[in-house]
C-alpha cells in the first residue's frame, strides 16, 4: 500500500523542522530521505513512525489514516542507528519481544524468530546477549527484530553509520537484497549521498525541512533541481562556475564556450554553470574548445586520481585515469562535455531547462 504524506508539518516552537506539502511513497519501493544533518530527515521518519506527532497535516497508508495512531498501531518496524537492542534480553528475547507483546502463541513466536534468524545468519547467536555481539551482529539482530513483525513499512534511521567501511558496504548489499526478497516498502534515512544513490529506488533530498527534489537516483544525479542537490551528490563534488551568457555562447573568465542553439535573447544573463568532474575531458595536446589548465594537485584514489586544475584563475576539479600519472605543475587541456552542462540561476540556484 502506498504511504501518502499530505501537508505534513512539524514545528519545534517557532522553528520549522519539516514541511512536506505532498509526497507519495509507493508500495514496495526503497525510498530514501537524504540531506545534511538538521535537514529534517530524521524528524520526517519519526513522524511516519508515530514517535513524534505532526503539528499539522496527515499520513495515510492506503485508505488508513495513520495520523492519530500510536507507533505500534501503525504496524511499522524501526531500525535505529544505535540498534537499541534490549541489553537484558538475549538475541532470541530481542527478536521475540514484539511478538510476545502481541500475545502470539509460543510456538508461532519460536517459528517466526527462527525463520528470521536463519535468514540473517543469527541462528548460532540466539542465546547470546547484545553485549557479546560485534557491531555487525547487533545490526543484524536489530534488522531481525524488525523482520519478525512482518510490518507494512520498514523504517531505517542511519542504520549503517556505526559500522566500519567494509562492513557497511556488505550490509548495504544485504539490505538491498533483503528489500527485494521481502518486497516490503523500506523508508531509509541517511546523510550519506553514496548510500542513497546505491540503495534507493527513489530519493527525496531535504534541506531546511523541505524536499528539494524527489526522484530516481539517476535523475537526481543527472538533472539536479538546484545547486544544493547538484553539490550534495557526487564525489568529488560538481564544479560550479560563474558564467555570463553572450550572443552565441558563454563567457567564463577568459574563456568562451560556444553553445548551440544561439543564446542571443538571453545575452547578459549571469548564471552558474555546473559540470561534474567526470564530465571534463582532459587532453595532453591543445584541442578544439579546450582550455589550457595547470594541475595544482593530484590526489590518488585507487584507479582514478582527482585533479585540482587552474585554468587562468578558473578552478576546476576533474577525474582522470590514475595510469595517466598527472602531476602538479603539468599543463593539460580541459574540455567540458557540452551535453553534460547544467545551468543554474545564480541567485536562486534553480536549474534552467535549457
Amino acid at each position: 500500500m502506498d504511504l501518502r504524506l499530505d501537508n505534513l508539518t512539524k514545528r519545534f516552537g517557532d522553528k520549522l523542522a519539516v514541511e512536506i506539502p505532498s509526497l507519495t511513497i509507493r508500495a514496495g519501493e526503497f525510498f530514501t530521505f537524504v540531506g545534511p544533518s538538521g535537514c529534517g530527515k530524521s524528524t520526517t521518519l519519526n513522524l511516519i513512525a508515530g514517535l513524534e506527532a505532526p503539528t499539522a497535516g496527515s499520513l495515510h497508508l492506503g485508505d488508513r489514516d495513520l495520523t492519530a495512531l500510536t507507533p505500534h498501531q501503525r504496524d511499522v518496524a524501526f531500525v535505529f542507528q544505535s540498534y537499541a537492542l534490549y541489553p537484558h534480553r538475549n538475541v532470541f528475547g530481542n527478536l521475540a519481544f514484539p511478538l510476545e507483546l502481541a500475545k502470539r502463541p509460543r510456538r508461532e513466536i519460536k517459528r517466526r524468530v527462527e525463520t528470521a534468524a536463519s535468514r540473517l545468519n543469527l541462528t548460532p547467536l540466539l542465546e547470546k546477549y547484545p553485549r557479546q555481539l560485534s557491531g555487525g551482529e547487533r545490526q543484524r539482530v536489530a534488522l531481525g527484530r524488525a523482520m519478525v513483525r512482518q510490518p507494512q513499512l520498514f523504517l531505517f534511521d542511519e542504520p549503517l553509520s556505526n559500522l566500519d567501511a567494509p562492513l557497511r558496504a556488505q550490509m548495504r548489499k544485504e539490505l538491498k537484497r533483503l528489500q527485494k526478497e521481502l518486497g516490503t516498502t523500506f523508508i531509509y534515512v541517511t546523510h550519506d549521498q553514496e548510500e542513497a544513490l546505491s540503495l534507493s529506488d527513489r530519493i527525496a533530498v531535504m534541506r531546511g525541512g523541505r524536499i528539494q527534489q524527489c526522484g530516481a537516483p539517476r535523475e537526481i544525479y543527472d538533472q539536479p533541481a538546484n545547486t544544493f542537490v547538484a553539490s550534495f551528490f557526487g564525489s568529488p563534488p560538481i564544479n560550479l562556475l560563474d558564467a555570463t551568457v553572450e550572443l552565441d555562447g558563454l563567457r567564463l573568465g577568459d574563456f568562451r564556450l560556444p553553445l548551440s542553439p544561439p543564446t542571443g535573447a538571453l545575452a547578459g544573463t549571469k548564471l552558474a554553470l555546473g559540470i561534474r568532474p567526470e564530465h571534463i575531458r582532459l587532453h595532453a595536446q591543445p584541442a578544439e574548445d579546450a582550455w589550457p589548465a595547470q594541475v595544482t594537485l593530484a590526489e590518488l584514489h585507487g584507479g582514478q586520481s582527482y585533479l585540482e586544475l587552474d585554468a587562468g584563475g578558473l578552478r576546476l576539479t576533474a577525474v582522470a585515469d590514475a595510469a595517466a600519472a598527472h602531476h602538479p605543475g603539468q599543463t593539460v587541456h580541459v574540455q567540458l562535455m557540452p551535453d553534460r552542462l547544467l545551468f543554474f540561476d545564480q541567485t536562486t540556484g534553480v536549474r534552467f531547462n535549457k
Partner: protein
Amino acid sequence: MDVKRTAHWLAGLLLVGLMLSFVLGPFVWQLITALKPEAQLAQLPPLLPSPPTGQHFATVLNAPGLLRVALNSILVAAATVALAFFLGIPAAYALAKLQVRARNPILGTLLCLSMFPAIANVAPLYLLFIRLGIRDNPLAIVLAHSVFALPFAIWMLTSFFQEIPDDLYRAARIDGCSHVGILRHVVLPLAAPSLLSVGLLVFIFSWNEFLYAFTLTATERSRTLPVAIALFPGLHELPWGEIAAASVLATLPVVALVLLFERRIVSGLTAGAVKG
C-alpha cells in the same frame, strides 16, 4: 625504587587504617560495651571485656515488647520503601523521559523539600497527624519518613532512568509497549541495580531515623527500634550494657542487607544496548 614503593604502600595502609577506625570505631566500642560485665562498664582498663558476658544480649532478647518494636521497625522501613517506589518510579519515569512541562521547577522543588531541616517539620506534622488521628500509629512514621524519602528517591531514579538510552524507549514503543509496559519490560529490568541501591538507602534511613519516630509515637504499639533503645527502661541509672547490646542487634539486619545485595549493586548492566 623499592624503598619508595614500600613507603607508598605503608602510607596507603595507614590511610585505610585511619579511615576504617574512624568508621568502625564507634561500632567496635559499642560491641565491647555490650560484652562487658556490668561492673567493668565504666572502667578503663580493661579495654576488652574480661570475661566477655552475654548477659546484656540475653536481657535485651528477653525484654518484653522487643519483638513488637522490631516488627514495627521492619514494617515502617519496608512501607517507606514501598511508598517511595510506588510513587517515585512513575514520577521519575515521567520526569526522565516524558516531555513534562515544568520539569526543572518540579525537580528544584523536590530538592528544596529534602533540604528542609527535619526539626522544622516536626511540630506541623505532629499537629497534622493528631488531627488525622494517626498519632502513635506506624502509618504516621511512614508518612513522615516519606516526606524525605520520596524526593530523594525521585531525584536518584530520575537520573538513573535518564541514563537509559532514548532509543530503547522508542524501540519499545514501536514494538508495542505502553508506558506501563516500558516501565515493566525495559526500565525496571535495566534499572534494577539502581532500584536496589535506592531502596536500600531509603530502608536504612527509615530504619535509623529517630526524631520523627520519637515525636510521633507514644507507646510500644508504634515505636521503632532507635526510639525503644533510647527509652530502654533502667531502674536507677542508664543501662549502658543493654543499650549497647540492643544497638548492635539493631545494626545487624542492615549490615546483612547490604552484604546480601552488595554484589547486585553493580553498574554495567546496560552494556551492549547501544554502540558504546
